[in-house]
Every structure is written in structure tokens, then in C-alpha cells.
């Protein structure tokens, strides 16, 4: 399963936070500015309309010519950049005006009770002047001023830039901080689970230090358990093999002359194999292994040759299909045992006449050994169970010798070499067992 990375998650979260914060800041600033600008404009409009009315009233009083003439006079004398002054009669018809506002089409108006009207793009202020006339001043809405619009555009354009900058900066910082985690991971991966092992990476932050302490605690307990287990298997090995060695030493000199001693010698060998298998299975799968290069092709050829000698004249020699060299890293003894067990297994179930083919090949980073036979194959449903300890097929129980440990041992060896073992029907008609190991490059 492909999981998301912590870095990826942090970056996504960080990007969202940065973008959200930037957007909020920009929009809030723009909103507040718009509100303040408009309030200021409204106050100006209000003050302007009041002043215009005052001016006209003063003019009228001084000249005694009526309000229309006074307005004309006043408008002639006074102008304000960006403002248009208008005198309207009761019907809303313009009687006098001064100044231009772009795109303003003076139309009949409905005079609002509060004196202010909100146009689409304009701000207006109106005041009653006497009982028959209305004074109106009109100006472009501040939010539609080119300068204000440009400022808004600049702020909106800065939003993605700020967000991108924050995100990139965060990315670099996160990456640098998370590198400590990667270093710890690397150290953990390289540390073998054995007594006395510990991890030591420079811990700049408390989390890394805590994690490292936790790992070291775990390693300590693991190492203790492993060395206990190791002591046990070594003592058990000694206790079991010493009497076998003595027995063998007694039997071998007389085996040539005494057939029953020769049989007993075979039994000693069978017992020895069983002890080996049990000890191997008892050992932890993570126990350290020698890491010498091993040529699987040579092992396959050796085994084919040796088996053709030990299986007796009637048996068919296993065929080997292998290149000159396929290397893996590990223990030659154990890998030879695994291959031997696979061939023995095929022989046991296929009989002496069975055709057995050992194939070794390299597929990219994998080294694959397959042992196929034309025997009866593995019954459906048992494909996974054949690798269990003491498992014996129903048909073989009581008829075939062996304790049912052979394939369990192969699996233990495969696991200790970071590999796998699988069973499937073979092209020859019987079973095919596939040992898949990391190849040495």
C-alpha cells in the first residue's frame, strides 16, 4: 500500500494554512479599507452638499435674484475637481449644473429621505434648498476610482505570491527538520537486533531524542531476549548433539560389518537433521547471519549432483537450468539446506522416477530459485499450510518419512535472508516451489 508521507501531509496542511491566512489578511484589509474609504467619501459628500447649499443661500440673500440665478452665479464661481453640482426642481429636472463626472447621466431622481442615494458607480448627496429645489452633488464612487482599483488588484495579485513564498519557505524548513527523522530511521534500519546494539544520531529536538531513547529501550529488551534465546539454543544444541556424536562415534567403525549398525547410523543422521531443523526454527528470524556472497547456481548444481549419488541408481537425476552465476548474500550452509530440502521434498512426494527441475534466475533485484516436479502436486487449499511446522499432507501421513519440518525450515531460512517462499502448480504437472531472495548486485 502506498502511504502518504508525513512531509507531504505537513506541506499540504502548511500550504492550506498559509494560503488561508494570506487570503484572510488580504480580504480583511480590502474590506476594512473599502469601508473606511466609503465612510470618508460619504462625509466629504455630505459636507460638500452642505457647503454648496450654504453658498447658494448666501448668494441669493446678497443678490435678491432668486435661487436659480444664485445657483448659476455660485456654480460659475465654484468648482470642485471630480464633483458635479446640480440644482433640481421639484420634479427632479436639472435647472443648473456645473462640473463633469465621467459616465454620469443625469436623470430624474427620486429624492431619498436621508438625502443620500447609492448609485451603481456614483455617490450622491442631496439637500432641500427652500421648498421647491434640491441641490445634488455627484461624484464617482471611491471604490470605482482607478487608483483604488489598482491598489486592490495589486493586493489580490500579491495573495498567491505571498502564499507561494510562505509555502516554499515552509517546505525547506520542514524538510530540514524532518531530515532528523530520516536519519533516525536510517540508523534504526541499520541496527541489527542484538545484545548491546543502540542507536546514536544527533538529536536536535526533544521528539527525536525521546524517540531515540524509546528505540534504545526496545533494542535493549530485544537484545536481552535474543541473547537469552541464543544461550538456550546453544545449550540445547550441545545437550542434543553431544550424545549423537558419541553414538555416531560408536556406530561408524562397526557399520561396515554390521547392517543393523548401518541402519542405526541412518537413524542418527535423521535425528541430527531433526535437531538441526528444530534449532533452526527456534532461532529468531532476525538473528544475524554471515554475509558472504553465495552463488545459488553452484549450490543448485552441487545439490543435483549430490542427490543423484545419495538417491541411489534408480532415481532420476534432478535437472538444473541455471546461468553461471546468481549471487545472494547470506549463509551458504543455510541456503544449501533450503535448496536441499526443496529437492528432497519434490523427491519425497514425486517418487524416485519424478522429474525434478531446479531453475535459478535473476529478475532485476531478485534472485529466484524454483524447484518443480511432475509429482502429484499440492492439494488445493494446502498451498499455504505446507510451510507450517509439522504439516504433512493427508495422503502422505503415515506413509512418507519425515517430521513435516522441511518446508518450514525453508521458510525460516528464506525469512532470515529477507526473502520469501511460495508454492504453485508447476508446468510439469506437479508442484513448483519458488524461493525469492534479494540478489547481490
Amino acid at each position: 500500500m502506498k502511504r502518504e508521507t508525513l512531509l507531504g501531509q505537513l506541506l499540504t496542511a502548511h500550504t492550506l494554512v498559509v494560503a488561508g491566512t494570506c487570503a484572510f489578511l488580504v480580504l480583511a484589509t480590502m474590506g476594512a479599507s473599502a469601508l473606511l474609504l466609503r465612510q470618508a467619501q460619504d462625509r466629504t459628500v455630505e459636507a460638500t452638499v452642505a457647503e454648496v447649499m450654504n453658498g447658494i443661500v448666501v448668494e441669493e440673500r446678497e443678490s435678491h435674484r432668486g435661487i436659480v440665478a444664485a445657483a448659476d452665479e455660485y456654480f460659475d464661481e465654484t468648482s470642485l475637481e471630480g464633483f458635479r453640482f446640480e440644482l433640481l426642481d421639484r420634479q427632479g429636472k436639472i435647472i443648473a449644473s456645473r462640473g463633469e463626472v465621467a459616465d454620469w447621466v443625469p436623470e430624474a431622481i427620486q429624492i431619498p429621505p436621508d438625502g443620500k442615494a447609492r448609485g451603481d458607480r456614483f455617490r450622491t448627496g442631496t439637500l432641500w434648498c427652500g421648498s421647491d429645489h434640491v441641490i445634488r452633488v455627484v461624484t464617482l464612487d471611491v471604490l470605482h476610482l482607478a487608483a483604488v482599483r489598482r491598489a486592490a488588484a495589486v493586493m489580490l495579485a500579491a495573495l498567491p505570491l505571498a502564499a507561494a513564498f510562505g509555502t516554499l519557505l515552509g517546505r525547506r524548513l520542514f524538510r530540514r527538520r524532518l531530515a532528523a527523522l530520516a536519519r533516525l530511521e536510517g540508523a534504526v534500519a541499520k541496527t541489527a537486533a542484538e545484545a548491546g546494539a543502540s542507536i546514536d544520531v544527533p538529536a536536535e529536538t526533544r521528539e527525536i531524542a525521546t524517540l531515540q531513547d524509546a528505540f534504545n529501550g526496545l533494542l535493549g529488551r530485544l537484545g536481552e531476549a535474543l541473547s537469552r534465546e541464543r544461550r538456550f539454543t546453544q545449550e540445547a544444541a550441545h545437550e542434543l548433539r553431544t550424545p549423537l556424536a558419541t553414538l555416531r562415534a560408536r556406530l561408524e567403525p562397526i557399520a561396515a560389518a554390521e547392517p543393523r549398525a548401518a541402519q542405526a547410523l541412518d537413524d542418527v543422521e535423521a535425528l541430527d537433521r531433526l535437531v538441526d531443523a528444530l534449532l533452526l526454527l527456534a532461532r529468531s528470524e532476525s538473528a544475524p547471519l554471515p554475509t558472504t556472497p553465495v552463488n545459488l547456481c553452484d549450490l543448485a548444481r552441487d545439490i543435483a549432483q549430490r542427490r543423484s549419488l545419495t538417491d541411489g541408481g534408480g532415481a532420476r537425476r534432478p535437472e538444473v537450468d541455471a546461468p553461471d552465476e546468481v549471487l545472494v548474500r547470506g549463509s551458504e550452509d543455510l541456503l544449501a539446506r533450503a535448496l536441499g530440502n526443496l529437492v528432497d521434498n519434490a523427491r519425497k512426494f514425486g517418487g524416485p522416477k519424478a522429474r525434478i527441475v531446479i531453475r535459478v534466475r535473476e529478475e532485476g533485484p531478485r534472485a529466484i530459485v524454483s524447484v518443480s516436479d511432475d509429482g502429484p502436486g499440492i492439494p488445493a487449499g494446502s498451498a499455504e499450510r505446507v510451510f507450517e511446522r509439522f504439516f504433512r499432507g493427508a495422503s502422505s501421513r503415515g506413509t512418507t518419512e519425515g517430521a513435516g519440518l522441511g518446508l518450514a525450515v525453508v521458510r525460516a531460512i528464506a525469512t532470515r535472508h529477507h526473502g520469501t517462499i511460495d508454492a504453485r502448480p508447476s508446468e510439469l504437472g506437479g508442484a513448483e516451489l519458488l524461493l525469492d531472495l534479494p540478489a547481490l548486485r
Partner: protein
Amino acid sequence: MRILVVEDQREVRTFVLETLEAAGFTVEGVSTYEAADRRLLAGGVAGVVLDWMLPDRPGVKLCEEMRRRKDPTPVLMLTARGDVEDRVAGLEAGADDYLKKPFAAAELRARVRALVRRGPRLTDAVVRIGPVEIHPASRQVVSEGREVPLTTREFDILETLARQRGRVLSRPRLLLAIWGTDDEAASGSLEVLMARLRRKLAAAGAPDAIRTVRGVGYALRDDA
């Protein structure tokens, strides 16, 4: 050739002694670390068959002690214990080979023969052939900081040649030193292994490290 057998189990010791005697070796048996140590100091021993567990001290310590005082006598460790990790520990302690109990007489014979044919043990000093370095202690071959991946057998051949560098080793002698037998099957394997070893050494920058002397055998080129 005198072989010292150090084993405390009387029956196993007798079996080893009789097997080796029948194979034409002069044999001598002791049962303790102390006795073995004294006997080795007296000299004249061509090889040691050493049990891992002795009543007074671990046999592997004797091996370490021998190497510490620069005694190159080859050692075959016998052990009833555990598995591959012990082999590694044994080889690291300075043993030349390792045999797991219980063992068959034929196997023992072959191993002891191979042991004494291999010649005196290399010191832990690194052997150099051009850019290629042989590290006998870790059983590794390195060229310009990169490991040359040799299998156990390939390393055995190279090491055996290095033990008697410059001298020509005959094919039967090499076969005995590595397999303990010089039969047909082993002879075929030697050809294949030698070809592969040469190819790997060539790839590592030492193309003519191993010389073939027609009709005689092989030798490791001697730069010094």
C-alpha cells in the same frame, strides 16, 4: 604429519584419533585446554582438531591465544553448539575451518586433509595484488573501497594461493586444500571456479593475478 586432537568426550576423541590414524596421520589426543596449550608450546604439530567446549576453558579461547602468540598452526573447530553464528565466531577467533557434531569419518578426513594442505595461516595483514586487497581476517576482498563478491569457495582458492604466494600449487594440491579430495567432480568445479575467480579479479583491476603454469598448476602473481 602430527595432528593434535583436543576433545574431552572420550568416545568422540577415540573416534577422531582412529579415523585420522587410519588416514595416515600421526595423532595425539588430549582432553583439556591446559594440556593442549602445553603440548602446542612444545611444537611439532601440523594441525589441531579442537573441540569448542572443554572442561576447563572454551576451546575457542585456545584458538585466540594461539593466534595472539603468532602460532600459525591450522585449527579445525569441532562444535556441537548452535549454528552459523558460531562458525563466524570461530573463524573470527582464528580457526581455519569448522565441523559440526555429529560428523562422519569421511567428512573429518577430508577436512583435516584440506586443513594441512592449505599451508600456514596468513597473518591478519592485508595481501595486495595491484588494487585488490585480500583481508584474511574478515574473509573479504576489496578493490578501491568496493567489495569484490567472492563466494566461500572462490575465497578459499584465492586465500590458499595467497598463503604460498609466488609458488606454483599443483591442481591435486589445490583440490585437497579446498575439498579434501582430488576426485573427478571436484576437478571440474576447480576449472569453473578458477575461471570465475579470474573474471572477478580482472573486473576488480587485477587481470593477471593468477598465473596458469601449463601441466603444473596455478600461482598467485608476486609483486614484491
